[in-house]
C-alpha cells in the first residue's frame, strides 16, 4: 500500500469528511481510503484523465458566456467520492421531506387563505415585497395542491460537522444530471472503489421524476403527454434538460414548439398538433408567458398562463414558488414547520439576520467584516459579499446598498464549510464542499439518496458554484448495514 498517497494532506482545522484526524480515516471511509492508497498516483492520475475525456466525448457540458460567445465547458469532476453513512442520511432525508412538505403548504396557504400571515407568523409585507411573489396566482388551484414538485436544497456542515440548510431552490433547481452522469462515469472508471462498500443506487431518479409529473396530469384517464420545456440550446443547463427528457422518454420542447388554442396547450409535430398535459418547465416564471409576464420574452408560450389557470395543463414547478425560496423568507422556514406540521425542524437553518428588521440591520452594518451578505433574489453566487475576505471599499458599497434597500438583503455568520479530499495536480488536498440533494414531491415525497456534492476547487475558496470555479464529485449514501463490510476485508 502506498501511504504516500495522502502524505501531504492537511485537515486545516475544519471539519474533514474523510479524516477524523490526520492519517486516520473515519470508519465509513476506511475501505475506500485503503483502495485509493493501493492504486498509487500513476494509476489514479491516469484514471482521472479518463473521466475528463469521457465527459467531453459525451458532451456533458455547460455553457459559459464570455463576450457574448458561449463556450462549452466540462463541469470539473473530482474522482474522490464523498460518503455519507446510512444513519446520518436517514436524518437528512426525514429533515428534507419535512421541510418540503412545509414549503408546499406555505405556497398553498400564501396563494389562498394566508393563515400564516393572519396569525402573525410571517409579516405580510415580507410576502408582498418578495420579488417572486406572483399576484397572478392568488386563488388559483394547482393540481393536487402541489407547488414545488422538484426541490434542490443546499446543505453545508459547520466546524462540528452539523448539517445546516443553506437555501432551498424551489424554482428550477439544476444539477441532477451531473449527479447521474458522475455516478455513471465513476462506475466506468473506478469500479474497484465501489467494491469497498455498498452504495445506494440513484439511477431510478428519472423514473421517479416521471411519476411525480404524471401525478399532476389534468387528464388522468389517458397516457398523459409530458414534455420538458427548455429555453434552448444556448441555456447553460441545456445538457441537463435534454438528459432528463431522454431519461424519462419524453420530448423536449422550446417555447416555439408549443401553441395555445382555446386554453389548451399543444405541441407542433410532424403529425399536426398534439395536446400537452404536463410541462416540466426549465424556464423561469418571468419568461414563461409573454402575455402575463415579460412581454419581450421569446422563450415562453403566449397564453400558457390562461391554460394553466383553467387547469388544462400542469406546470412543474408551479408558478410563484419563488416566494418560498426568497432569501428573506428562508429564516421563517423553521416557523413554517412548527406552524403547519406542529413539529420541531429536524434540520436547522444557518442563523440569519434580516436587514428589513431594524435591529438586525443595525447589527449587520456593524459586523459586516464577519458576515456573509446575500441579495435576497439572487442565486448562483452572484450579489454576495464575503465580509471577512472583502476589501473595505467593497464592504462600504454593500453597507450603502443595504441602507438603500434593506428588504433586498440578509446576512449570515460565515460558516466554515466542511472539507473533503480532492485530487488536484497529483496530490490529495482538502477542498470545501456542500451538498444539494434533490427531493421530489408527488404521490409521496422521495429524496434521492445523496445528491450533488459541489467542490470549491480553488484553494481556500468557500464558493462552490459552477459559475465561480466549482466542480463536483460523486456522492455515496451507504446501505444501512454495510458501513464496515469493506473495512474488514
Amino acid at each position, binding site marked *: 500500500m502506498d501511504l504516500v498517497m495522502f502524505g501531504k494532506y492537511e485537515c486545516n482545522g475544519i471539519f474533514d469528511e474523510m479524516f477524523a484526524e490526520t492519517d486516520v480515516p473515519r470508519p465509513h471511509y476506511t475501505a475506500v481510503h485503503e483502495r485509493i492508497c493501493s492504486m498509487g498516483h500513476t494509476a489514479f492520475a491516469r484514471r482521472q484523465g479518463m473521466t475528463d475525456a469521457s465527459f467531453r466525448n*459525451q458532451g456533458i457540458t455547460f455553457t459559459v458566456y464570455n463576450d457574448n460567445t458561449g463556450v462549452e465547458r466540462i463541469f470539473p469532476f473530482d474522482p474522490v467520492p464523498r460518503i455519507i453513512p446510512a444513519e446520518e442520511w436517514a436524518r437528512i432525508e426525514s429533515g428534507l421531506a419535512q421541510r418540503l412538505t412545509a414549503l408546499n403548504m406555505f405556497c398553498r396557504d400564501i396563494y389562498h387563505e394566508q393563515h400564516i400571515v393572519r396569525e402573525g407568523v410571517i409579516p405580510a409585507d415580507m410576502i408582498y415585497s418578495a420579488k417572486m411573489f406572483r399576484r397572478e396566482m392568488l386563488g388559483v388551484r394547482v393540481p393536487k395542491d402541489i407547488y414545488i414538485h422538484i426541490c434542490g436544497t443546499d446543505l453545508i456542515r459547520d466546524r462540528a460537522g452539523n448539517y445546516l440548510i443553506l437555501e432551498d431552490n424551489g424554482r428550477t433547481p439544476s444539477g441532477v444530471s451531473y449527479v447521474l452522469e458522475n455516478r455513471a462515469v465513476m462506475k466506468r472508471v473506478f469500479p474497484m472503489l465501489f467494491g469497498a462498500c455498498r452504495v445506494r443506487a440513484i439511477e431510478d431518479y428519472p423514473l421517479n421524476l416521471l411519476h411525480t409529473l404524471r401525478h399532476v396530469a389534468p387528464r388522468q384517464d389517458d397516457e398523459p403527454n409530458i414534455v420538458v420545456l427548455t429555453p434552448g440550446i444556448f441555456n447553460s443547463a441545456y445538457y441537463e434538460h435534454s438528459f432528463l427528457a*431522454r431519461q424519462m422518454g419524453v420530448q423536449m420542447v422550446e417555447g416555439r414548439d408549443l401553441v395555445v388554442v382555446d386554453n389548451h396547450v399543444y405541441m407542433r409535430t*410532424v403529425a399536426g398538433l*398534439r395536446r400537452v398535459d404536463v410541462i416540466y418547465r426549465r424556464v423561469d416564471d418571468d419568461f414563461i408567458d409573454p402575455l402575463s409576464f415579460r412581454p419581450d420574452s421569446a422563450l415562453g408560450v403566449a397564453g400558457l398562463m390562461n391554460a394553466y389557470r383553467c387547469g388544462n395543463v400542469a406546470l412543474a414547478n408551479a408558478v410563484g414558488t419563488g416566494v418560498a425560496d426568497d432569501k428573506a423568507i428562508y429564516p421563517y422556514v423553521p416557523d413554517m414547520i412548527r406552524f403547519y406540521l406542529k413539529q420541531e425542524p429536524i434540520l436547522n437553518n444557518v442563523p440569519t439576520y434580516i436587514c428589513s428588521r431594524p435591529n438586525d440591520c443595525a447589527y449587520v452594518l456593524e459586523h459586516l467584516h464577519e458576515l456573509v451578505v446575500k441579495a435576497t433574489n439572487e442565486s448562483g453566487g452572484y450579489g454576495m459579499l464575503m465580509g471577512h475576505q472583502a476589501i473595505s471599499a467593497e464592504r462600504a458599497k454593500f453597507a450603502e446598498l443595504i441602507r438603500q434597500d434593506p428588504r433586498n438583503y440578509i446576512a449570515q455568520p460565515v460558516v466554515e464549510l466542511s472539507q473533503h479530499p480532492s485530487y488536484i495536480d497529483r496530490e490529495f488536498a482538502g477542498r470545501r464542499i456542500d451538498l444539494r440533494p434533490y427531493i421530489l414531491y408527488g404521490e409521496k415525497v422521495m429524496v434521492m439518496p445523496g445528491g450533488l456534492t459541489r467542490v470549491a476547487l480553488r484553494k481556500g475558496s468557500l464558493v462552490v458554484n459552477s459559475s465561480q470555479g466549482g466542480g463536483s464529485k460523486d456522492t455515496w449514501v451507504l446501505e444501512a448495514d454495510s458501513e464496515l463490510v469493506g473495512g474488514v476485508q
Partner: protein
Amino acid sequence: MMRAETNPVLNNHVSPMLVRAADGMYWMGRYMERAEQIARVLLEHESMVTDVGDVNVELQRVLLRSLPGILGVDLLPEVQTFLQEEAAQSFYGLAQYLTLGATNPNSLVHSLTRARENARGMREHVSAEMWEHINTLYWSFQGTEAQTRFEDSASDLFRATIQGAALFHGLVDQTMAHGQGWIFTRMGVLLERIDMTCRILAIRGRVLQQEDANLDPGVRNLHWMSVLRACGALEAYRRQHVGDMDPAQIVRFMVLDPGFPRTVAFSVRTAYGAVTQLRTGRSSRQADAAERILGRLNTQLEYADPGELDGADPFGYLQDIQVRVALAAEAIRKAYFL
C-alpha cells in the same frame, strides 16, 4: 392533426416528432453526408494531382477551379472573394479552405459542426451511441487540431471523415428505431448524396468531355477512374465493366444502376421508399408533393431506356435530376418542418 390518425408510422409512436426535431434530424443527415462527400472529392483530387498533375496543366487548372462548384459553394460571396486570392490557385491552398476555411460556411469542418449542432439540439431523438460518436468526431476537428491534422496529412483527415461517416450510418441503422427520426435522417443523407453525385458527374464530366480530344488514352482512364472514386464507386463499377473507362457507361452506371448504394437510382428509390412511409392517405393519389416528385423520378430512372443518357447532353439530364431533388427537399420542408 389529420395526418396522425391515418398514418401508422406517425401514429405508432406515443408521441409524434416535433416539427423542429424532424428538421434537425434531416439536417444532421444532410451535413454528415456533405462532410463525407467533401472528404471523398478532396481525397480523390489530391490523389489525381499526384498521378497526373504534371500532364495537361491547363486541364488541371480547370479541374481545380471546378472544385468549389462540385461542392456547391461557388456562388457564395465569401467563397468568391477567397477564390481571387493567391492561396486559391494551388490544390492545397484551396483544399485547406474547403476543409477548414473560416469564411466558408460549407467547409468540411463546418458541416461536421452543424451535424453535431443539430444532433445536440435533438438529443432525445439521437441514440447515446450516435451522439457520442458525432461529438467525438466533432472534437477531433476543433481548434488548432484540424489545422495540424491537415498539415500532417490531409488524406488522413479525409479518410477519418469518411470512416466517421460510415460509423455514423451504421449507428443510425443499428441504434435507432426505424421510425420518424430515422426516416428524416435518411432523407437528409440521400437527398444530399443525389445532389452531390449529380454535381460531380455533371461538372467533372463536362470538363473531361470538352478536353476529350486532347487526352492521351492512359490519362483519360485515370481521369475517369478519379470521377468514379470521387463518387465512391470505382470498385463497384469495375465489377460490372472491365476494360478501358467508358464515359457514357460510367454516367449510365452512376445514374441508373439499381444495385449500388451510391448511385442516383438507388438513392432515389430509397428516398422514395422512406417518404412513402410518411404518406397519410391510402392511395398514391393522396401523396404529398415530395412523394409525387420522388415517385415520378424513381419511375423515370427505374424504367429508363439505357440510351436515354447517351444523347448530346447527358449533363443536362443530371441537372434536371438535381432540380427535381431540390423541389422534393423544398416540399419536405413545407410539409413537415414548418
